[in-house]
């Protein structure tokens, strides 16, 4: 472990390096072998049939993955276990698959059929997880399969599965962007979903796939607003961000009047110092202008939908999730009227008590907000005070906010606070504080002198960094009124002897040069000192020395001519080309020669022009053009995939696009329903249609939360009340969308109704009756049939009455032709010859309720039974039970006199065609009667089912009896464990099926056989060469041995040296085709075609054994 892992660590994520490569490195030989061995034992454990060993192996493998080590060479061994019945093993196998499928595409395909089967599991969690894993396997070849699976899951009755479908959309999109158009259709459909569980995920898919299709939102806008409060928190974030963008395109700017003013003012505001002084005037001005503007414009009225959004998001400011709070805050910042934005401040301040990372992001956003809306945070000034334990980056951001919040009234408090900060031991923070003081000084005229004095005092600070920073800030401040401050300049000139920080030295030199007329005596002396140390200075200082020299030469050439020339000469040979360049440039400009151009006349103007003072601006200025709370805002750069926040439209687009019309018939059905179920609350759909959205909003969200709590157990329960309601609403939506769709896409005309009818189902019972309208779909009586259906769903009795009829329909539909479905399937069939699509066909059978399935399927099997008994060549069905192999279930001794044997009767199990019939013989060898023989406490792997035999009341001493029970082994050879109980004893027993018993014979013609075989080529075909046993070289004995080994039926065959057999697996109806081709001298070739790899492999072994013994 230790050495091996150390080695593997180096490999890191380098993925698929094959093991044997290590062999080249002699040094790692020992390690290599131990590593190899270890993997071998993992393989062994995976191949064993003990779940505990498999689990242990998988745990070790997943731990390897988690540590970033390469486990890809185990892929074949792991993938075999994908159909493992142990849920723990299975989960880990899924984890493994998702990680390595991309690297081992071919092998990954082996697992696909397992997931396809899982997609049809009656358990919603299994369906969801199958879809989740299937869609996470990044293998391009399965794109069509994923597409189909997503489409199907999007109309699943379980909201959880639909949610998973929504999650799968971006996965498929990233795998194959070509699918965009189809995916948009699915998104559109899921957007219409009314469950809170789906809403967040589908909006996320929308944002990743087609954020530009804002038109898809119109119809769902009000619903999303109303559902919002009950959506899970992550979904809330995505929805709110999306709705912010939506609102920006659809509504008018609520601050339209103010924003006009803002524009007018900003022009005058660009210069420091002016804004604060003018603030009060502005207020008055503003009022006047507002009045004017109001008079000019027609008064702004907020769209009720805009109001709805603001109102429904506001409670979310109380969320415990910082991301949700931030999302609402940015929504208010970008969309709310100025007067209402204030509410977000408190919530944001609350987030400042959270983790430091949260603080970091929130403070960035607050900093941006404080520039636009300072007043909002003023009451919380003290919340931004800095603690000595804050991380530096937080301190600096808080400083930024405090600076933005400073105004005349609070500046004295803020400055006092700043003063304590300067004493901090954190020097970066001190430097930032000095900068902040500088900014306060430029922004607030009254305190400029105070600040300057304070900063000058800092010049005598012991810490050089503090001094240097102060110099830089003072330089900026002095530029504003240099004439008043020649003494400060003098003071700074003195500092040049001591300060070593280049930036500060450069600043001082610039100041002296710029204002040399204020310090006429000192300046030349400074230049003298600098000329001395020139060669040792940093580049920025050298440049400033040159500048100083040039300026002095121009103003005071008498004293400085020589010095300047000296400095220029030094610079001429400097290592840095910038400095050489500058020297050349300055020399040409200031030293008059005959060659010097016209420019030298203007040298003085060039160098000593009056320079505007720098504007000390917040780095957060104008950051609000990025949507707040976004990554782009934080980085102040557009991140990939960022959606611009659009500007408000000039005039509002048509608000009626958001109206959701409620068709006449659905209204009345809803009304009827209300009568029946005594539901008083209106549903979204009617209330939206009947009353104004604003008024009804409250009651709507109430009903929303009500339904949520009712469906709190969504994951476990289906068919709960809320589900039914919602599905009904769903059908309303569907119905009305249908029309345009039908006209738009003639191609899909046939396909659509299928999906629709599926999506309309919320409870399983609905499935059957829904078939009805399909046939009638084109007729006008549609609405009526819908209604009668919803009635029939609710009462079981209704259902059972109509059952015979529906069953017949189902039979007609599903058995002989399946006209509608076939067509849809054919479209995609061509694309995936690799993988069997037959798996999709029985899609509906596992989902039907047991009652229905029981009846209809038994009819099917009965029919099959008939066809088989006609076939003389199918010995399996007519094989006498004497030739059947019996297995012991309970020995006479352990059973205390009761001995039990079982055999596989190969008869169809009539109560459930998906089960294998097991015939059980009981023999009572004891002297007393055994009574109440029954089965109890079946411990089954997931998906397996058992139909117990009816209780045997009494088995007299010495008597024997036979019973038949049915077991659905889910097409696996996993044992079924249960307890056999008598009135007094319990025995643990196990039935393990040989693989050959997991199928039932089917009759086929030679042509059919060839066709099917053609579709099961490639990985689905396993062939093996063998030598036949000497006494089994004739056709008859081959047939007999094969049919003994497995429950197959013979397929007629033209050729003499080939025997063909066919069957379907009992649970999933997958075809199993067996061919034995004989060659001279007893050589033969056995071929099995089956899309269940596992079954195929095992069957080959079994038959091989039968033929060679």
């Amino acid at each position, binding site marked *: 472990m230790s050495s091996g892992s150390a080695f593997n660590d180096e490999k*890191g*994520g380098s993925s698929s390096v094959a093991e044997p490569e290590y062999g080249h490195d002699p040094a790692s030989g020992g390690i290599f072998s131990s590593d190899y061995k270890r993997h071998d034992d993992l393989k062994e454990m995976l191949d064993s049939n003990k779940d505990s060993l498999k689990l242990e192996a998988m*745990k070790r493998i*997943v*731990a390897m993955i*988690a*540590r*970033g080590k390469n486990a890809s060479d185990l892929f074949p061994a792991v993938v075999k276990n994908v159909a493992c019945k142990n849920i723990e093993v299975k989960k*880990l196998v899924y*984890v493994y698959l998702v*990680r390595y499928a991309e690297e081992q595409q071919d092998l990954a395909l082996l697992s696909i059929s397992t997931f396809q089967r899982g997609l049809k599991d009656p358990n919603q969690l299994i369906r969801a997880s199958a879809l989740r894993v299937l*869609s996470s396997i*990044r293998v391009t070849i399965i794109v069509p399969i994923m597409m189909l699976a997503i489409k199907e899951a999007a109309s699943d009755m379980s909201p959880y599965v639909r949610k998973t479908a929504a*999650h799968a959309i*971006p996965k498929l999109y*990233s795998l194959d962007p070509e699918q965009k158009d189809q995916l948009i259709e699915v998104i559109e459909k899921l957007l219409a979903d009314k469950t809170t569980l789906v809403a967040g995920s589908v909006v*996320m898919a929308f944002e990743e796939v087609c954020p530009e299709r804002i038109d898809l939102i119109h119809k769902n806008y009000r619903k999303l607003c109303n559902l919002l*409060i009950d959506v*899970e*928190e*992550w979904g809330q*974030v995505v929805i709110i961000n999306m709705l912010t963008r939506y609102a920006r395109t659809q509504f008018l700017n609520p601050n339209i009047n103010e924003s006009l003013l803002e524009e007018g003012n900003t022009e005058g505001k660009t210069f420091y110092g002016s804004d604060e002084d003018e603030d009060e005037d502005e207020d008055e001005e503003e009022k006047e202008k507002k009045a004017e503007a109001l008079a000019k414009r027609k008064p702004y009225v907020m769209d009720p939908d805009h109001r709805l959004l603001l109102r429904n998001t506001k*409670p979310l400011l*109380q*969320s*415990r*999730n*910082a*991301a949700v709070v*931030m999302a609402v805050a940015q929504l208010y910042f970008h969309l709310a009227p100025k007067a209402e934005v204030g509410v977000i401040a408190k*919530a944001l301040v*609350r987030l400042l*008590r959270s*983790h*430091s*990372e*949260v603080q*970091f*992001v929130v403070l960035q956003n607050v900093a941006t907000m404080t520039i636009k809306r300072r007043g909002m945070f003023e009451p919380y000034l003290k919340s931004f005070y800095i*603690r*000595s*334990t804050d*991380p*530096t980056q937080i301190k600096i951001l808080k400083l930024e906010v405090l600076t933005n919040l400073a105004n005349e009234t609070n500046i004295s408090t803020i400055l006092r606070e700043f003063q304590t900060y300067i*004493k*901090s*031991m954190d020097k970066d923070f001190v430097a930032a504080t000095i900068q902040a003081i500088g900014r306060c000084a430029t922004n607030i005229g009254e305190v400029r002198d105070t600040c300057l004095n304070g900063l000058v005092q800092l010049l005598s600070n*012991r810490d050089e960094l503090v001094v240097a920073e102060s110099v830089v800030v003072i330089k900026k401040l002095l530029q504003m009124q240099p004439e008043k401050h020649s003494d400060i300049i003098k003071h700074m000139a003195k500092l040049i002897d001591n300060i070593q920080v280049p930036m500060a030295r450069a600043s001082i030199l610039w100041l002296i040069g710029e204002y040399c007329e204020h310090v006429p005596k000192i300046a030349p002396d400074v230049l003298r000192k600098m000329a001395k140390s020139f060669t040792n200075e940093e580049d920025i200082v050298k440049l400033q020395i040159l500048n100083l020299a040039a300026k002095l030469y121009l103003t005071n050439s008498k004293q400085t001519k020589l010095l300047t020339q000296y400095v220029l000469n030094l610079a001429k040979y400097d290592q840095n080309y910038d400095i050489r360049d500058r020297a050349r440039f300055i020399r040409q400009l200031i030293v008059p020669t005959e060659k010097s151009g016209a420019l030298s006349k203007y040298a003085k103007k060039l160098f000593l022009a009056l320079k505007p003072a720098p504007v000390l601006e917040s780095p957060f200025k104008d950051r609000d053009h990025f949507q707040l*709370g*976004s*990554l*782009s805002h*934080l*980085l102040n*750069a557009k*991140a*990939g995939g960022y959606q611009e926040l659009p500007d408000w439209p000039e005039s509002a687009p048509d608000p009626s696009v958001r109206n959701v019309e409620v068709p006449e018939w659905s209204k009345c059905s809803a009304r009827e329903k209300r009568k029946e179920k005594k539901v008083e609350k209106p549903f979204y759909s009617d209330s939206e249609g009947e009353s104004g959205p604003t008024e009804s909003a409250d009651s709507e969200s*109430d009903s929303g939360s009500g339904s949520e*709590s009712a469906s*709190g157990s969504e994951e476990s329960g289906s068919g709960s009340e809320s589900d039914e309601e919602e599905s009904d609403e769903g059908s309303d939506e569907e119905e009305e969308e249908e029309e345009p769709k039908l006209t738009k896409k003639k191609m899909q005309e046939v396909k659509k109704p299928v999906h629709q009818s599926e999506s309309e189902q919320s409870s399983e019972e609905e499935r059957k009756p829904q078939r009805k309208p399909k046939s009638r779909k084109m007729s006008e009586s549609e609405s009526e049939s819908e209604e009668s259906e919803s009635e029939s769903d609710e009462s079981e009795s209704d259902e059972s009455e109509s059952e015979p009829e529906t069953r017949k329909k189902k039979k007609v539909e599903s058995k002989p032709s399946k006209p509608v479905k076939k067509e849809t399937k054919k479209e995609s069939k061509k694309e995936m010859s690799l993988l069997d699509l037959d798996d999709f066909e029985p899609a509906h059978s596992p989902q039907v309720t047991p009652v229905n399935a029981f009846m209809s399927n038994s009819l099917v099997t009965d029919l099959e039974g008939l066809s088989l008994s006609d076939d003389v060549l199918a010995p399996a069905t007519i094989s006498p039970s004497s030739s059947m192999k019996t297995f012991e279930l309970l020995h006479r001794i352990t059973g205390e006199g009761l001995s039990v044997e079982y055999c596989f009767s190969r008869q169809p199990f009539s109560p459930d065609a998906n089960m294998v019939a097991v015939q059980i013989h009981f023999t009572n060898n004891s002297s007393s009667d055994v009574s109440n023989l029954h089965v109890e406490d079946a411990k089954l792997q997931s998906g397996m089912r058992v139909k117990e035999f009816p209780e045997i009341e009494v088995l007299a001493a010495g008597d024997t009896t036979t019973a038949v029970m049915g077991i659905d082994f889910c097409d696996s050879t996993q044992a079924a464990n249960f307890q056999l109980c008598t009135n007094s004893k319990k025995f643990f027993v196990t039935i393990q099926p040989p693989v050959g018993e997991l199928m039932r014979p089917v009759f086929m013609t030679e042509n059919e056989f060839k066709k099917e075989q053609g579709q099961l080529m490639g990985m689905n075909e396993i062939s093996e060469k063998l030598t036949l046993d000497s006494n089994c070289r004739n056709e008859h004995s081959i047939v007999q041995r094969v049919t003994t080994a497995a429950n197959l039926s013979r397929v007629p065959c033209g050729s003499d040296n080939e025997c063909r057999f066919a069957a379907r697996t009992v649970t999933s109806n997958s075809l199993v085709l067996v061919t034995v081709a004989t060659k001279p001298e007893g050589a033969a070739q056995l071929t099995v075609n089956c899309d269940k790899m596992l079954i195929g492999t095992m069957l080959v072994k079994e038959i091989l054994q039968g033929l060679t013994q």
Partner: protein
Amino acid sequence: MIHSLFLINNTGDIFLEKHWKSVISRSVCDYFFEAKAKAGDPENVPPVLQTPHHYLISVYRGKIFLLSVIQSEVPPLFVIEFLHRVADTIQDYFGECSENVIKDNLVIVYELLEEMLDNGFPLATESNVLKEMIRPPNILRSVVNTLTGTTVFAEIQGVIEACVRLSGMPDLTLSFMNPRLLDDVSFHPCVRFKRWEAERVLSFIPPDGNFTLMSYHVNSQNLVAIPVYVKQNINFFDSGSCGRLDITIGPKQTMGKMVESLSVTIPMPKTVLSANLTATQGSYTFDLATKILIWDVGKLNPQKLPNLKGTLSMQSGVPKPEENPSLSIGLKIQQLAISGLKVNRLDMYGEKYKPFKGVKYVTKAGKFQVRT
């Protein structure tokens, strides 16, 4: 959204990686290590980093970094909040979120991560939902139905933590004697916001186990009564390279309750070499590497006030520190909520049995700093 996650310890070892989309080489973490080296203190590492092809968003919890790799625009808080939720979940499962615990339970943690995100988008983040899918190492099966609310108060903010072990779907209503005290609140998603707005009661169907029901902020206008006072005197002398320290703590307003777990933490200036102190109560430690002095006082005895006194020896030849260190005080008071918030009653609807109810008030110092 979230592409990959790396768990990194303080020394820069990546001990877990999880990818929700295609694999991203762990070399992407080099950018993070660079930033970490630059920042020095782990607290100072910027939570959001930009690299040529990815964005790195990280949080620091329990001496480990949770570093996520992002490829396109996503609200940074979304990721940060999620990463903290991951840490919370690990804490909930294994008692703490530390490197050792994660290494010991690597497979469970990996499975948890698999469940928590699907294609980088959060799927199941509630601990009760997760526990249904992935079993914690040993789950407590408590037969007794108990509900205990631990009310923890700091200066002006607090949380109500609930521990619910009730079977079925109980509908609980918790009301306060004085809800007006609460200024700003945030709730667990199970709380019905409408009822709170209308009636100021907490109505909710609780998830199983421990969770934070509500966190709140008490209006700072109601002056916070600080339960202890500190008399301190720290001097550094210019000459002689030494300093003197003298700290006394006394009770102020404790409403007759005992102040417990009292401790004082002082980050000393770097020039302090050692401390030679005597404490009348408790013990002190001085960490030479981090220069942090911790005085663990224990229970506060109002009769005999604890005192810590002595000299500090300083590096010679270095000017004395300009700033005196600030003191951070930690304390706990059982059975007292300093804000005065009181739970009035807790009712259960929807289930027949009689639950066991209990409430525990605790006051803790949050970030109680004394500037010197």
